[in-house]
């Protein structure tokens, strides 16, 4: 073991690993977002190209695992954060984010289009979706028509759900059941429990089990079938439409206190609800656009479940009750 060789290798390795930021001659906008947004197949590359073309600036994305990690990171960095814009929180997190005092009100934005309207002065939505039970048509001929049917149905037909303590859709289902059953939510969970094959820490694990054929149903989004129809050309996986309505998830972006000093931040927020951004959303982020598109939605999106009703709690309600509701879930499910 030659010591000098090892040291040299270490130095080389660390040098290759160190994030190399090119010297910025142009104005720069730093956007913190989640991993799948900036992935090659995500909306990130297109959004970056379009915005840079319109602003003669440079967009730099910094990505973390998901929305929760995003909020944690910004909270940790506090006022010294490099982020001008934080993109990818959902409405269950915005109350927390606001309370941290790290975001400033946004300027005028147009064309915001989400179910139930939008009136938040700090965060602007960029896409939305509905939680849904996605099922395998080859395994399940008669999917549940309502949350009630799901809860009371054949316990032999299993569903994989996510843990609300560690995952966004998991929390979504808790809120959904709460919105439908109210005070009777605990009883509903007690019945549903028999149909739950397992509770995974995140969406990926649950969906993985589902596509492996372990269970005929999984908690996911109404938009999930669009991916399978457009990218995989298969109709096999479909979302079940529930008569009580579906719980809404809105993804938003906001300007940080750092970004308040960067004129590009306002520009980006205005750009975000326009076609340069929104055109990329449906078929890269697999969510519904929350603004104006230039090109039409792929017809597959028209065939997705259209919820009879959007169920949603306000961010403040969620912030206030999340712990109690999750504990209620936990108490029933771990019996």
């Amino acid at each position, binding site marked *: 073991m030659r010591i000098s060789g090892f040291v040299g290798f*270490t130095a080389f390795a660390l040098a290759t690993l160190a994030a190399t930021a090119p010297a910025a001659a142009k104005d720069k906008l730093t956007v913190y977002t989640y991993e799948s947004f900036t992935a090659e197949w995500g909306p990130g590359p297109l959004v970056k190209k379009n915005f840079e073309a319109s602003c003669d600036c440079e967009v730099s994305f910094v*990505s973390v695992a998901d929305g929760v990690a995003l909020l944690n990171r910004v909270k940790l960095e*506090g006022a010294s954060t490099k982020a001008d814009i934080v993109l990818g929180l959902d409405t269950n997190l915005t109350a927390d984010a606001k309370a941290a005092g790290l975001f400033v009100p946004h300027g005028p934005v147009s064309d915001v289009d989400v179910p139930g309207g939008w009136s938040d002065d700090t965060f602007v939505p960029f896409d939305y979706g509905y939680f849904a039970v996605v099922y395998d048509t080859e395994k399940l001929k008669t999917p549940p028509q309502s949350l009630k049917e799901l809860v009371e149905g054949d316990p032999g037909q299993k569903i994989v759900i996510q843990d609300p303590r*560690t995952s966004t859709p998991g929390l979504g289902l808790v809120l959904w059941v709460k919105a439908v059953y109210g005070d009777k939510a605990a009883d509903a969970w007690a019945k549903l429990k028999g149909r739950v094959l*397992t509770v*995974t820490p995140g969406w990926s694990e649950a969906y993985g089990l589902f596509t492996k054929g372990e*269970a005929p149903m999984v908690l996911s989004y109404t938009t999930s079938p669009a991916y399978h129809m457009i990218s995989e050309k298969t109709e096999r996986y479909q979302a079940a439409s529930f008569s009580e309505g579906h719980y809404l998830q809105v993804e938003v972006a906001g300007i940080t206190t750092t970004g308040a000093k960067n004129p590009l931040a306002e520009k980006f927020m205005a750009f975000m609800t326009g076609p340069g951004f929104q055109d990329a959303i449906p078929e890269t982020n697999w969510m519904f656009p929350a603004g104006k598109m230039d090109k039409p939605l792929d017809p597959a999106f028209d065939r997705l479940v259209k919820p009879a009703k959007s169920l949603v709690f306000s961010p403040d309600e969620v912030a206030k009750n999340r712990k109690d509701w999750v504990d209620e879930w*936990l108490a029933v499910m771990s019996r």
Partner: protein
Amino acid sequence: MAGRDEPVKAAPDTRITAGVIALGLIAILVGGAFAGLIAEGAGNLAGAAAAFDGYLFRIARFTLWQAALSTLLSVAPALFVARALSRHPVFFGRTLILQLFALPLALPAIVAALGVLALYGRAGYFADLLSVGGQNWPGIYGLSGILVAHVFFNLPLATRLFLEALQAVPSDQWRLSSQLGMRAPATFRLIEWPALRAALPGVAGLVFMLCITSFTIVLTLGGGPAASTLEVAIYQALRFDFDPARAVSLTLIQIGLTLLVVGALARLGASMTGDANLPVAPRRYLSAGNLETVLNAVLILLALAFVAGPMAATVMAGLGADLGRLAGEAAVRQATMTSLVLACLSAALSVAISLSLVMARRALAIRRRSERRSLLELLSDTGPAFVLVVPPIVLGAGWFVLLRHVADVFAIAPVMVVAVNAMMAMPFALRALRPAYDAASERHERLCAQLGVAGWTRLLLIDWPPLRRPLATAFSFAMALSLGDLGVIALFGSDSVQTLPYLLLARMGSYRTADAAGLALLLGLACLALVLAADRLGKGREA
């Protein structure tokens, strides 16, 4: 009158100095993280107190229960598989089996879970076989699933470690046993079992610690939050609630429980004073009878099938992916490079620290004259292993909190990954190195003291040759572990550390399950390549 290059003054044993430095590094890494979290959580001590409730008691009980069962089911069979392998030092495929046994640890937990389910799940290969009387096979969800997955991870590990212990038995003992015409049971009782028993507390402790901190496996296969571990609660406390005080108190509970169990395990073992004669001949004096050979073959095949099954399923799934395209992607190549470099660095650091500790422990053990061990010796012995039960997410979060005002902490993420992975791999490296070093020291200690061979000279000239093979084993273990890990960065993520497992989960998280399966295959192959290389390196010139 002293030799030319001998020091004028008695220098303290450099091995102990090295051990103290290694312990210092560990203490700084763990202490720093705790300091960061405690400072952050000081404002909210209610969180720490609120951690103690009935729910905590329930999950603590389940955590211990599943970990104890998993340990028993992994370690007990491993004793016999290791023994079978040691009875047949040469047969076709033996090396390959051992190399395969290093792989499960490198697989991210979800990949392993899917691999296990591919066989034993509701839609698994065996589901039809297992469905009786029109009843559909319910899958292995619940405790059984957790146990199967844990045994898949830990049986191979325990087997390899036990085998190391058996190989450290002096060849004279084997010759003696065959000369005395000892049959298998007698050989086991008189030679193998004492060696295995000496290794047992360490190996069982290690497996226990791995199981007690299990997270993805427990949640995914556990069937519901009734199967929940402390690790899940810690994760939740940091990730969703960002409640550092609660995370710290939960971590302390986890460490406390582990201390209790590992302390109890230590009583199972017996210290073995090795007979340290010069190994005059390579051991080829083993003679297993026909019946025993058949039994051993069955045992090895069963273990192999159990371990290779889920891996084969992973390979099959991976072959379904568009591997050519994947291998061509810049992101994949970049991630592969990053993973390899990080794993190499972690493994090197891990082995260096472990060797320092092993040397210090031995040096301290030689110095003492009574049964009572000094605190320093205890620390350099079992102390560092407890790093395993400090969740990486706690280490990561603590340091990020601590350093955020001082430096751009996200730029130093790679350093954190290397340091934390090195620590997490250290207990494995320790297990692999210690028996060999102690045996070598037993032979050489007085001679080295007499001749004044110490420090680097001793390391390179005297200790290196007999340690070469165990060092390679330790290195490949450490590397495999680091390859599959992404715990440290899970909380905050970092653009500068896009490793293969990270990429794999990202693909899984955006419907690209086929890509993810392909990446799992690539990850396994990368790991296999590393293990092969390390084995080759370790063989070298047999001294």
